[in-house]
């Protein structure tokens, strides 16, 4: 990548991304990299004339950076003790170190000092006791080195030369150039970026032959006083007008006969034309400025799209290089295909051409690796797995400069991803099995964790053979799917359908009714069902691992996150039963994982991967919301992320309008439409499976019920007539049946109560009768069909009282009139008259098209004739004296749009009329879908704390984060297997504390930024914010709603929330410890070890609460860590 032309920093704006990845920074003392435990401490004892501080030397390097390797004496080290032979390279001043692998090195001008943490090789000097030190020159880092290895015939940079280095960046390559030119030569290093310039100056302090110039290379007149003429110009300014810049500088400084070496990046200059064309064009420009191209090499495999061009200034009469006279082909230079020339260079031990890849797995050495904060995070290279990889590591370890961010100078400073897991190009297809393993080493830890997770989740899963806790609900709901009976529940159906599926697969026939605490009979394969559902719980652990990887955490943090997910006893416990929580957690985890994965695809929008992960995020959202509505919380996290993302894109003025629209469109399609479709599909499936009448019928509209098998509504006579006995269903979403019972109102008129009720019994039956002043209903007379505008009387069939209203305030909705039942078959008054008003008919449309009223489909309103009010049943609940049924009142406001005043005839009995036919009663899916959802919402809100239950099971949200309460999941008798829902305290407390610390840290950083303190590189800051926001916002979105909502809450509601505090825990440890520059590796390892021990230890201590405790609970010592836990019997 290259600098953006508009970058504020001008010339080298591209460097803005900073060396954020660098653990030590160029200023830091050389330091070994943090190896996994057990790898340290080996480096000291290596002898030999030339001690190579290779991979094995890391331990020593950490402790004493200066030359301890040489002092090792005669005892050969375990590895890498072989001698290294130094040979001069064809180019003067450059050397080759041949040891186990072959490296390009330069002689260190300042022995004992590394510039950017590169490896150094000490060699016994010519005199006894003196040492010469060489620094390894990484071709992946320095284009000049790549050029040398790429076979550049002449670099013109030799000892004693004066070099003008344009685009010096932090001075990593410059330092090698300085090594080459030696004390006699001079390097003028020009760099425009202030930040890089600072590092450059720091480097120059040690190397007196480097003269740092922090200026724009476009304005050579500004620094012309600083330098005289030079022999060579080396240019690596990733700017579109590079050729012009070089020419300009050459005009000022290049002495006659001087040379220029230019690194050209094709995509930087014009990404739309092929690289070759770009190079050709640049060459043309140079020709115009009287440069004569000598040679071009491509820097593959070290750099993509780069070419190195060495030219000769034709001003010079003496063209120096002899080969320039050689006849050339049609082109003025020859292209040298990359590997052949220097194959042997790299791997003497592997003669075969292709083995180079084996020794130097290129994908591990990509530039992104260098950008990593910690190189060996599982996200980085899979080195998280200990020692067996050493042999593999060796080849590239030597070049691994501790993840110093030298390469990011190539990157746009604010590329689309400066946070999250660094980008890594796909590895080449493996050619051997060994290679395949090598490439997939990073997957070994998650595999191990998954196996462990299988063990913890499945261990003794069938120990308790009774229905534990909410298995009573969800097991039962699963049974309904198997029996295909319609039921009603407050949760969306996906999770319960999966329970049903598990039952089906396990061979369960749905006959058990899952009474709480009952023992499972032989016929219920409860163990198999539990295992299937626990599988979702098993998958949480690898998901946790990979999420941490995708979030760009270091390998230690990844291990911790996976361990915490593995070892939390609450997650473990809840996953082991027939409950929805394991699925909810699983889909919550996948959502976060997909989001993180999608975030990492941002650098190349609209590619296949990008679409896949975006769509998977949407799919995940759809699933999580279809399991429990709690899933909307993680959805809002995705929403917040997307809004911020789109806002950023909106501010990107360079993005075309078309791309903007595509971005918006893609998100709307994948994150809104797709989840809704999935959600609706789960309901469609729900309706399709549950095709029989069951206990949940009454919650649904009459029409829906008519379509259930076993329901007789479709046999209703179609047209309603006077004398019919009917039940009336309120059409408000989730409305019940008009009901009355002998109990009377304790307030108001004290007449018989009228309520709305979901349960079907004969108290819902009403007979339609004519007015008192008309002739009484004659069962033999002509049938009088009911029509719009009729004034009728509604008689309650069991008590023969009449539906009545009067101007007395209703008991709850005091602004409305009370509705009661009054009189009897013969006694009544004008207050019993109700005007039937037709609203419309679901099938037949507006009311002017027909005059008869159909059962089920016609929507009616009942107006009280005397007071003009409308019969209404909204969501007001009567007090205990009304059995908490829904209040029915008479609404004085005439609001024709109020569905709570709409009624339809549900059951209809009239033996004089012919039965109807099911084809009249089709129910549209969308209507049922919406109806069911409203009914669910209504019931959900009605789950208000019940004083009887509260003190034992329920808990308040504020009691969760610090694990104030636990939950007894089953009976607590001595002979029962007891499960106690409680988290692993270390994980819960640590997570909560880190949420607080994280917020404080962010505030402190912000305040320091306001004072311009530079605590970290922008990339680090972005990373800190990105992960912090995912964790903090996710936690808040999952926690705060519980504070506000009035419904009864249990501790298991915190379980999805916990995940985000775990992520925050890992992130903060990562931020403050594992990637800290101040702490030594030993400290980091100690912290890591202690944390792991604490987590695993506490888990082991508490494992019983999830695996089941036998015997008297009080005999299990030490489980009550907080006085508020009711784990022991008092």
């Amino acid at each position: 990548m290259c600098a953006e032309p508009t970058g504020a920093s001008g010339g080298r704006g591209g460097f803005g991304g900073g060396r954020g990845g660098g653990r030590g920074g160029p200023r830091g003392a050389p330091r070994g990299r943090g190896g996994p435990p057990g790898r340290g401490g080996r480096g000291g004892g290596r002898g030999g004339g030339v001690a190579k501080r290779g991979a094995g030397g890391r331990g020593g390097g950490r402790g004493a950076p200066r030359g301890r390797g040489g002092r090792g004496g005669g005892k050969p080290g375990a590895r890498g003790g072989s001698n290294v032979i130094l040979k001069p390279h064809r180019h003067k001043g450059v050397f080759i170190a041949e040891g186990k692998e072959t490296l390009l090195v330069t002689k260190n001008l300042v022995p004992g000092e590394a510039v950017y943490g590169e490896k150094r090789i000490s060699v016994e000097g010519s005199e006894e006791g003196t040492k010469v030190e060489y620094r390894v020159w990484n071709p992946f880092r320095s284009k000049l080195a790549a050029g040398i290895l790429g076979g550049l015939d002449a670099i013109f940079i030799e000892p004693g030369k004066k070099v003008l280095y344009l685009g010096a960046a932090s001075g990593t390559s410059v330092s090698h150039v300085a090594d080459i030119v030696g004390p006699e030569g001079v390097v003028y290093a020009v760099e425009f970026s202030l930040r890089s310039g600072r590092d450059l100056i720091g480097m120059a302090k040690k190397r007196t032959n480097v003269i740092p110039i922090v200026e724009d290379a476009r304005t050579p007149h500004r620094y012309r006083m600083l330098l005289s003429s030079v022999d060579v110009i080396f240019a690596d300014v990733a700017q579109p007008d590079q050729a012009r810049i070089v020419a300009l500088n050459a005009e000022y400084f290049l002495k006659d006969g001087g040379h220029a070496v230019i690194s050209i990046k094709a995509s930087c200059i014009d990404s739309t034309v092929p690289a070759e064309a770009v190079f050709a064009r640049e060459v043309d420009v140079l020709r115009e400025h009287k440069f004569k191209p000598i040679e071009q090499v491509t820097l593959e495999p070290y750099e993509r799209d780069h070419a190195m061009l060495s030219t000769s200034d034709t001003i010079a009469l003496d063209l120096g290089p002899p080969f320039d006279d050689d006849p050339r082909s049609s082109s003025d230079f020859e292209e040298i295909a990359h590997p052949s020339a220097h194959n042997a260079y790299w791997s003497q031990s592997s003669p075969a051409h292709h083995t180079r890849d084996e020794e130097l797995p290129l994908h591990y050495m990509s530039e992104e690796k260098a950008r990593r904060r910690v190189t060996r995070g599982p996200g980085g290279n899979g080195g998280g797995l200990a020692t067996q990889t050493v042999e593999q590591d060796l080849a590239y370890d030597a070049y691994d400069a501790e993840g110093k961010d030298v390469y990011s100078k190539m990157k746009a400073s604010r590329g689309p991803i400066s946070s999250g897991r660094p980008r890594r190009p796909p590895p080449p297809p493996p050619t051997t099995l060994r290679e395949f393993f090598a490439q997939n080493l990073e997957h070994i830890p998650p595999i191990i964790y998954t196996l462990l997770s299988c063990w913890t989740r499945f261990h003794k899963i069938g120990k308790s053979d009774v229905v534990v806790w909410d298995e009573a609900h969800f097991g039962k709901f699963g049974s309904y799917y198997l029996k295909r009976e319609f039921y009603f529940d407050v949760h969306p159906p996906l999770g319960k359908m999966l329970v049903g599926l598990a039952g089906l697969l396990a061979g369960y026939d749905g006959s058990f009714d899952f009474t709480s605490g009952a023992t499972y009979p032989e016929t219920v394969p409860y163990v198999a069902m539990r295992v299937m559902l626990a599988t979702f719980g098993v998958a949480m652990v690898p998901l946790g691992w990979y999420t941490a990887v995708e979030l760009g955490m270091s390998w230690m943090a990844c291990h911790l996150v996976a361990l915490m997910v593995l070892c939390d006893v609450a997650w473990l416990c809840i996953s082991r039963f027939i409950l929805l929580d394991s699925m909810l957690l699983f889909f919550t985890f996948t959502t976060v994982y997909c989001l993180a994965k999608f975030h990492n695809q941002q650098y190349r929008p609209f590619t296949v991967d990008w679409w896949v992960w975006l769509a998977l995020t949407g799919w995940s959202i759809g699933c999580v919301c279809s399991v429990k509505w709690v899933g909307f919380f993680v959805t809002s996290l995705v929403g917040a992320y997307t809004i911020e993302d789109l806002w950023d894109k909106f501010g990107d003025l360079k993005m075309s309008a078309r791309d903007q629209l595509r971005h918006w469109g893609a998100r709307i399609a994948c994150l809104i439409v797709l989840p809704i479709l999935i959600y609706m599909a789960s309901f469609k499936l729900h309706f399709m499976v549950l095709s029989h009448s069951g206990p949940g019928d009454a919650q649904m509209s009459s029409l829906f019920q008519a379509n259930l098998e076993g329901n007789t509504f479709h046999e209703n006579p179609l047209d309603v007539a006077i004398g019919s006995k009917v039940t009336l269903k309120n059409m408000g979403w989730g409305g019940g049946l008009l009901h009355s019972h002998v109990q009377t109102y304790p307030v108001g008129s004290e007449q018989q109560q009228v309520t709305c009720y979901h349960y079907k019994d004969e108290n819902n039956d009403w007979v339609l009768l004519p007015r008192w002043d008309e002739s009484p209903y004659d069962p033999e007379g002509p049938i009088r069909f009911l029509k719009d505008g009729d004034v009728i009387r509604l008689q309650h069939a069991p008590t023969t009282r009449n539906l009545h209203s009067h101007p007395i305030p209703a008991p709850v909705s005091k602004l409305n009139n009370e509705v009661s039942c009054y009189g009897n078959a013969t006694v009544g008054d004008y207050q019993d008259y109700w005007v039937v008003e037709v609203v419309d008919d679901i099938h037949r449309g507006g009311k002017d098209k027909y005059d008869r009223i159909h059962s089920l489909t016609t929507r009616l309103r009942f107006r009280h004739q005397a007071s003009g009010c409308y019969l209404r049943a909204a969501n007001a609940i009567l007090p205990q004296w009304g059995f908490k049924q829904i209040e029915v009142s008479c609404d004085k406001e005439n609001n024709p749009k109020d569905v709570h005043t709409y009624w339809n005839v549900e059951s209809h009995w009239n033996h004089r009329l012919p039965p109807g036919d099911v084809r009249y009663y089709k129910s549209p899916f969308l209507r049922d879908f919406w109806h069911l959802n409203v009914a669910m919402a209504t019931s959900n809100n009605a789950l208000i704390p019940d004083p009887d239950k509260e003190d034992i099971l329920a808990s308040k949200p504020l009691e969760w984060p610090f694990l104030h309460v636990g939950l007894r999941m089953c009976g607590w008798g001595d002979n029962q297997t007891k499960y106690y829902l409680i988290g692993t305290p270390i994980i819960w407390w640590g997570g909560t504390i880190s949420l607080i610390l994280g917020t404080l840290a962010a505030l402190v950083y912000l305040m320091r930024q306001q004072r311009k303190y530079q605590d970290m590189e922008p990339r680090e800051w972005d990373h800190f914010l990105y992960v912090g926001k995912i964790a903090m916002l996710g936690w808040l979105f999952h926690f705060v709603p519980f504070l506000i909502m009035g419904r009864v809450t249990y501790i298991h509601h915190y379980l999805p929330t916990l995940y985000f505090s775990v992520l925050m825990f890992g992130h903060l440890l990562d931020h403050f410890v594992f990637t800290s520059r101040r702490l030594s590796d030993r400290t980091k390892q100690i912290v890591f070890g202690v944390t792991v021990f604490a987590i695993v230890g506490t888990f082991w201590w508490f494992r019983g609460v999830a695996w089941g405790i036998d015997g008297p609970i009080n005999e299990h010592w030490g489980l009550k860590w907080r006085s508020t836990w009711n784990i022991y019997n008092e």
Partner: protein
Amino acid sequence: MSSGGGPSRIRNRKAPSEASRDLSIEYDDDDERNNDVQHPRNRSYAEKVLETEQANVGMIALLTTLAFALRFFKINHPDQVVFDEVHFGKFASYYIQRQYYFDVHPPLAKLLFGLAGWFVGYDGTFGFENIGDSYTEAHVPYVGMRALPAILGSLTVPVVYAIMKECGFSTIVATFSACIVLFDNAHVAQDRLILLDATLIFFMTLTMYCYIRFKKLRYRDFSYDWWLWLLSCGTFMAFTWASKVNGILTVFAIGIAVIIDLWDILDIKKGHSLEYFWKHFAARAVAFIVLPVFLYLTIFWIHLSILTNSGPGDTFMSPAFQETLRGNELLLNSQEIRYYDTITIRHKDTRVFLHSHPDKYPLKYDDGRISSQGQQVTGYGHDDSNNYWQVIPTKALPETGRGRVVRDEDIFQLLHVNTQTLLLTHDVASPLMPTNEEFTTWPKDDLSRYNDTLFQLRLVDGYEGEPWKSKSGHFRLIHVPTKVAMWTHPKQLPDWAYKQQEINGNKNVNDKTAIWFVDNIVDDETGEDAKERTVDVPAKEPKSLNFFKKFFELQILMLQHNAGLTASHPYASGPINWPFLISGISFWTQSEGQKQIYFIGNIVGWWACVIGISLYTGIMLADLVARRRDVEPLTEPVRHRLLNSTGFFLLFWGVHYFPFFLMSRQLFLHHYLPSHVASALVAGSVLSFALSESVNYPVSVWGPRLRASKPRTYADLGSRGPIVVGAFVLLMFIFYVYIAPLTYGTPGLDGHAVNARRILSSWTLHFAAKPTDGI
């Protein structure tokens, strides 16, 4: 979350320019630059007339006079208790009688009412029992008490005007904002009655005014004036907070403004040192934390030092608190209990006595569960001899002396005197709650269940060996073998227990409602009347209790009760309805003459405010979006003014409005009034923006270190301003007069007139003519 949103980008964009490195300070926040420099003499005629000192004074005088006239008009009508005067009038009486009362609101506004009542010679004997009670018959000088909010409410109008003026808006715009408050039926209705909101709003506007004055002096920091306005802002903020519980929102609003302000000072580009920042921080900490807390405490101290007599608020408080009140029952009748005393035990929350009678529990309940069929133990509301229990020791007692006193953590039995049975509980489910244990009794002589009759006394907040006292000794009774607490709840038992309350054993021994106290000692151990033990005791002096203990106890209770006000009320409404005036509150009705007071705002003014807020949000959002695309539709000066001045108003509006969405307590339209005032300010500044893009500059006071960098500019609305505002005010006034009968409660309206005034169908006016009448 996604990349690149970091502050560093912003920093880059605003990289300090050469100019800002200059040592002298320029205007920053209000950095309004106006290129078309305007000479004051070139302004339009209207502006020249209006922007003079005389016009200003004249306008203030006019507004104030009008405000007083509108608020005092017929203030003696109605001569009856209206709406919440029931509460607040009563509280004033208590101050005058110095009786302790309890209320959820802090006392300042009520103290002022008490003061006003005392000032006009009210003796505090009127009960304020019901809405509609007559004042004249009871000779209550209610006009004097109503005058207090009317005065404060009237003064709010000029303060609103002054706020707008100080913020740099034209006279005419300031008049516009003031008129929205002046001609508002809701404010007038609220101001004329003995209600707290007028005080609250007055102090809130004063707080805003002082804060603006303080902010304007930021280039003369630490000057005398600066300190003056800073401290007065803190003072008024404390008064707002102490007037009504919602006043805490003002504290939040100021707090947010101060944080933003400090954040700016912290910015290194301002060139201040950290010492300078800490100085500012300390000054604000003193003015906005230390001073208000001190004042708040002082007000409570006054409150508590006035209310020294026992009163209706006693029962809310802890026994220790109650004993500090003169004439409190606890103080007079609290006795140490000795073994073999016969006592009555009462539940603290539901006030029922622990009761037993010879009837047994039915063997089988309706739900099929089985009982022990023991003797019933119930909670009974009335005093009778079945409530008598005798304390039986489980240890040897000395013959006489202090050793016979029952103490904390003692274990004893309770003997039901009438049936000579011992109280017992066991692991049998109680009649109504399967989770709790049944309470019953057991014959005294049958020792087979001895263990189940043992109970332990746990005094609330007791220390070891504390004697158990009647009245004041609140306690839990813990069953020794099964560790349950004796508990009751308001659910009634069925007919077989005469609908008395169920007593059961609650496994949660720490339940807040498991607290009981001994109501009375009926007989002492010798069988004599316990009163005799009292005879010798001289009348006790009230004990003293640390003020801070009292204060914190009171604060916690206030919070709890405020949250507990959840009962439904026919005129309660949700916050979303408020800005649109969807429904009002019926304050008072009188059938005779069909008079009523219906609390509703001036729909013209309120909707103008809503439009103003929507426009403002719309403009700022559009500006935000446009700037994101590098288009700058607003000029810098205008944008700064909109952000800083109007943003401050909007902050007050939002902070006083949105928290209500989270509250589950009863909410009424009058909770919106503080926000309404703030929205009037927003509406004014939006009007100013709509009429002209010119602004008055500079607004802040010139400081000594300040370099005059930009020329002075003047807002000029031209002749449009007076015309638009004049028309609007006229419209408001017409509407005001039209609705006035509902606001002043006079004259009475016939049904059709009521219907005509029912502008929104959701207004529930009384005496409306019904089209369906007469059927």
